[in-house]
């Protein structure tokens, strides 16, 4: 045994002393054993301080066990770096490297502990009170650096997370004695059973106990039971897995750590169970006294676990402080570990000593009706305690006892978190001075210590009963099962005293209720004085139970203390609602493989590779479609590229990839009725080959989408809509024809990805297309504006639509997607003679602003109707009904003056103005008059032009208004919202 493991017994424990594991903590080298946790290995090496506390940066060591040990917070370094890991549950492995959190610059010298000296400025609600002036942001960087928990990892983890779904008959949560026996009952009866436990080993409290079942140490029974469960195919055992959320539908979220295969970091399960059995046990409760957080103050269960499971000796001389009989279980453990017991301080004055102390220990001094007032510390460790007691005559006396270990038990809190998460109600039970499950809302049953049953025999009995009850609820007959007899070490007289705190909570007394959030008795008292007498408010104002603890250790003490100060019964204070997660869960575990690009994959047109090779800078066009924004030539700036592309379209010929545009086939005898219902204008009498532009409103009478609909033939129509709006249009129309107007005999099929679209536009577009190998008559007479024709280009089937979004002569050539790239290449090749130029969405945007065409998400921002945008002509007066008509009429009646679309010419013809810049008068604090929706440099006009919406805009042409950018007013002239070819001659050529 090396000096390194100086606090380790040379016998006992479930560790393998032949397998040494080297690890690093805060940069120093240590050695532990296989079977250790990081916390047990550190304790064995005499490391007292694992972390610094959240608010006051006080040194903290191991206090509790498992996930309740919220003070053992560390950051794990390495390829799967993880902040905020509890050292008490982190299995030790070779090469593990960890750091304390909340320490700056180091764990032994912490600048933040200055906060301790100035603690009067950090009471309850201190964030709200202290940092108000001049401004929170002044203090924020300092506070964030000094407070807060671990650091977010700088790199993605090397391993992976996955999700899994499962369904079972009976889900047992907790693999302590009750959970194991309940699961065995279920599985033996043939029910599909899942049992989970948050620890790496099943057994719960039996893991560290000296209890005997059937004459053997309880862990033997555990091993046999687990083997039996694992031998059944319909039973699943998940260890090292936390049930962190109990949701509606009787679904439980379980985070499994380090599952197989080894590349996995974690796996999140969603398990739907017909019946859930909660066998979550109970967590030992601290008692609140001054300096109850000093390293060396530990709960009895943590001390017992350190000795029994890890062979670690957490001190030399101990004082036991308790309010119940369960704490006396610790006496043989201390004896084995050679720890001297200086005194037992029991808050009860009527302890029947012979029932709690074996005759061997009768020489121990038991102070009854006594309490620890204060821990005396030396450096970062307990040196002694100050005890308040009464002598035989009832006289108060105060004494000091030297010790380096304080073993505390304040009773046991049933782990009711999941029960509460499932919206079950809780009830205060005076017998155990804590809360127990009351009414279940879902298919939930409870077995064992969670119900307040503190004896092992009672827990085992309830496990079989509850297991059978769960089975009978789902119609399965329970197989007979034998309940193991507790032959040694059960405690039947728990006898807890409702003792919460030995301090009245003066201002400078640091007596902690919530160790994770550094909430003291004084904080609770102060909050009550300030008028927070409702538990939900108290919780939020003081942050009790809101941090890592999530009420595991803090809540019941807080409720007890609040009840004391409000002079009422704890049941009148009530509890707060527990919420998921029970313990912290990695985001990665929840996301599983749905991370990065996989969550919302991009959609690409068949021509994407060509665009990229040609220098396209790709944009998202909406609905995850990627489209070229502009094509950059060598030595060119973005603006130069856009101007070049615009010039090509206005003067010779451009080509753009319009494939992402939303497209739907509509068929059925009521198609015309549907179109008349969803569009504001009339679609009566559209002949095959003809198309019409339409505006779609929502039921609130505001513009929802726009697009062109063509009648392809007698039977089918092709509806196009905006790229980004396509999913919403589909949902809307789908609901309409399925739910709201099921009498319409119509079918809608999305075909966006089935068609590639190459749009050839510009004054020479017809000339160019006439030189393609094609059977199409491209003349104006044969294919006029707003018509469609089918034909062949170079052997490829195409549909050509005469539509224009650029204001130029334009042919939208659609071909099945598999021909998309071939068609595009062919057109580029033919177009060489006309100096064809591929055009991106930036140039498209400039061209449409020049024409004053609408763009969704610019002018159409969800607050405008067609008339606002000068599209009154498209709103049918003849139709009795269309979606949005009624609401639009009502709105316009009540609000005759509205914001309207206008053109805006910056007085400085080179000035560009940000989209969204408000328009408002100078020197007045008034509502804005409108805003700039788009502003671009127009090559043909050789100046900047803008569109915007302006109150009563159409009656203000010629007026000068001010747009505000960064506090600067920029004058603009109001004009008609069209800057180029107002008559629309060019696009109809």
């Amino acid at each position, binding site marked *: 045994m090396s000096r390194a493991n100086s606090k380790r017994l040379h016998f006992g424990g479930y560790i393998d002393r032949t397998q040494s594991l080297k690890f690093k903590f805060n940069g120093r080298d240590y050695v532990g054993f296989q079977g250790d946790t990081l916390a047990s290995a550190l304790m064995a090496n005499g490391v007292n301080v694992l972390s610094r506390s959240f608010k006051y940066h006080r040194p903290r060591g191991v206090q509790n066990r498992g996930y309740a040990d919220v003070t053992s917070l560390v950051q794990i370094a390495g390829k799967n770096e993880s902040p905020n890991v509890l050292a008490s549950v982190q299995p030790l492995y070779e090469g593990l490297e960890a750091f304390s959190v909340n320490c700056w610059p180091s764990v032994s010298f912490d600048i933040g502990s200055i906060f301790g000296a100035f603690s009067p400025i950090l009471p309850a609600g201190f964030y709200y009170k202290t940092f108000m002036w001049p401004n929170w942001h002044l203090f924020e960087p300092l506070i964030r650096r000094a407070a807060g928990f671990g650091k977010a990892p700088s790199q993605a983890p090397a391993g992976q997370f996955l999700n899994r779904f499962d369904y079972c008959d009976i889900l047992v949560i907790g693999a302590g004695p009750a959970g194991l026996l309940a699961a065995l009952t279920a599985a033996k009866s043939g029910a599909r059973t899942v049992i989970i436990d948050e620890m790496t080993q099943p057994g719960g409290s039996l893991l560290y106990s000296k209890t005997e079942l059937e004459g053997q140490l309880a862990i033997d029974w555990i091993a046999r039971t687990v083997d039996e469960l694992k031998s059944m195919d319909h039973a699943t055992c998940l260890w090292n897995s936390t049930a962190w959320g109990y949701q*509606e539908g009787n679904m439980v979220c379980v985070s499994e750590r380090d599952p197989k295969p080894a590349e996995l970091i974690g796996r999140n399960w*969603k398990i739907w169970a017909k019946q859930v059995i909660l066998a979550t046990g109970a967590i030992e409760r601290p008692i609140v006294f001054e300096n109850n957080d000093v390293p060396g103050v530990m709960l009895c269960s943590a001390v017992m676990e350190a000795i029994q499971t890890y062979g670690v000796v957490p001190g030399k001389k101990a004082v036991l402080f308790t309010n119940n009989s369960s704490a006396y279980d610790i006496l043989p453990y201390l004896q084995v570990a050679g720890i001297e017991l200086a005194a037992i301080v029991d808050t009860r004055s009527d302890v029947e000593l012979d029932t709690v102390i074996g005759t061997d220990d009768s020489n121990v001094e038991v102070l009854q009706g006594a309490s620890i007032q204060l821990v005396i510390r030396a450096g970062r460790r307990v040196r002694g305690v100050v005890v308040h007691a009464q002598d035989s005559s009832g006289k108060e006396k105060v004494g000091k006892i030297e010790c380096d270990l304080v073993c505390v038990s304040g009773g046991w809190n049933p782990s009711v978190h999941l029960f509460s998460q499932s*919206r079950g109600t809780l009830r205060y039970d005076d017998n155990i001075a804590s809360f127990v499950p009351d009414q279940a809302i879902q298919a939930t049953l409870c077995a064992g210590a969670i119900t307040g049953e503190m004896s092992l025999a009672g827990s085992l009995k309830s496990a079989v009963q509850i297991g059978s009850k769960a089975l009978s609820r789902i119609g399965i007959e329970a197989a007979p099962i034998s309940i193991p007899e507790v032959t040694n070490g059960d405690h039947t007289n728990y006898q807890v005293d409702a003792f919460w705190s030995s301090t009245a909570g003066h201002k400078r007394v640091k007596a902690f209720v919530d160790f994770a959030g550094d909430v003291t008795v004084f904080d609770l008292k102060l909050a009550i004085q300030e008028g927070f007498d409702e538990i939900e408010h108290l919780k939020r104002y003081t942050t009790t139970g809101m941090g890592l603890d999530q009420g595991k250790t803090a809540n019941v003490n807080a409720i007890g203390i609040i009840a004391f100060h409000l002079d009422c019964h704890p049941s009148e204070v009530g509890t707060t609602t527990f919420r998921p997660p029970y313990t912290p869960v990695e985001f990665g575990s929840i996301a599983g493989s749905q991370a990065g690009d996989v969550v919302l994959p991009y959609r690409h047109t068949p021509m994407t590779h060509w665009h990229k090779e040609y220098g396209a800078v790709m944009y998202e066009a909406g609905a995850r479609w990627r489209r070229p924004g502009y094509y950059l030539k060598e030595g060119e700036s973005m603006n130069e590229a856009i101007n070049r592309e615009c010039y090509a379209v206005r003067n010779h010929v451009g080509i753009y990839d319009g494939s992402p545009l939303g497209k739907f086939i509509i068929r059925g005898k009521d198609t015309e009725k549907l179109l008349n219902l969803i569009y504001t204008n009339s679609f009566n009498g559209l002949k095959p080959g003809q198309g019409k532009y339409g505006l779609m409103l929502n039921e609130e009478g505001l513009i929802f989408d726009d697009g062109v609909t063509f009648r392809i033939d007698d039977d089918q129509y092709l509806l196009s809509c905006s790229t980004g709006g396509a999913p919403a249009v589909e*949902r809307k129309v*789908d609901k309409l024809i399925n*739910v709201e107007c099921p009498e319409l005999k119509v079918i809608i099929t999305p075909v966006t990805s089935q068609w590639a679209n190459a749009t050839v536009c510009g004054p020479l577009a017809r000339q160019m297309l006439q030189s393609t190998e094609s059977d199409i008559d491209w003349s104006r007479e044969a294919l006029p504006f707003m018509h469609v024709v089918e034909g062949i280009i170079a052997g490829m089937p195409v549909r050509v639509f005469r539509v224009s979004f650029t204001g130029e002569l334009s042919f939208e050539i659609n071909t099945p997607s598999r021909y998309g790239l071939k068609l595009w290449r062919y057109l580029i090749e033919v177009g060489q003679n006309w100096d064809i130029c591929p055009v991106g969405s930036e140039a498209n945007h400039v061209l449409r602003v020049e024409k004053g065409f609408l763009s969704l998400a610019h002018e159409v921002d969800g607050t405008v109707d067609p008339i606002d945008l000068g599209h009154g002509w498209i709103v049918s007066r003849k139709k009795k*009904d269309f979606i949005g008509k*009624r609401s639009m009429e009502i709105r316009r009646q009540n609000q005759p003056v509205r914001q309207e679309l206008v053109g805006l010419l910056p007085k400085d013809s080179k000035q560009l103005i940000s989209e969204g810049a408000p328009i408002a008068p100078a020197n007045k604090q008034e509502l804005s008059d409108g805003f700039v929706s788009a502003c671009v440099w127009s090559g043909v006009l050789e100046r900047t032009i803008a569109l915007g919406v302006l109150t009563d805009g159409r009656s203000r042409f010629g007026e000068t208004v001010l747009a505000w950018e960064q506090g600067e007013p920029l004058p603009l002239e109001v004009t008609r919202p069209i800057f180029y070819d107002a008559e629309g001659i060019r696009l109809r050529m």
Partner: protein
Amino acid sequence: MLLIHCPWCGVRAESEFRCTGQVKPPRSEFVHKSDEAWLEYLYQADNRRGILEEYWCHEKGCGQWFKLRRDTTTHEIMDGDTDS
């Protein structure tokens, strides 16, 4: 997460479905009524505690629309498809 019975696919996870709100009478019954009646139809939801009938669509599955009765306090689903 709820388990929902799709009349076409059977029991599936809630994440495959879309709920579009309470079942209302058809719009045609209200669109020509008084302003108040129309706006109430459009904007007022019961937001009821207790059993509510809603439209659900198995959007990420077969696309089937159906009505579903759900208790808004307990999330209990009363029955699967009524008629669709």
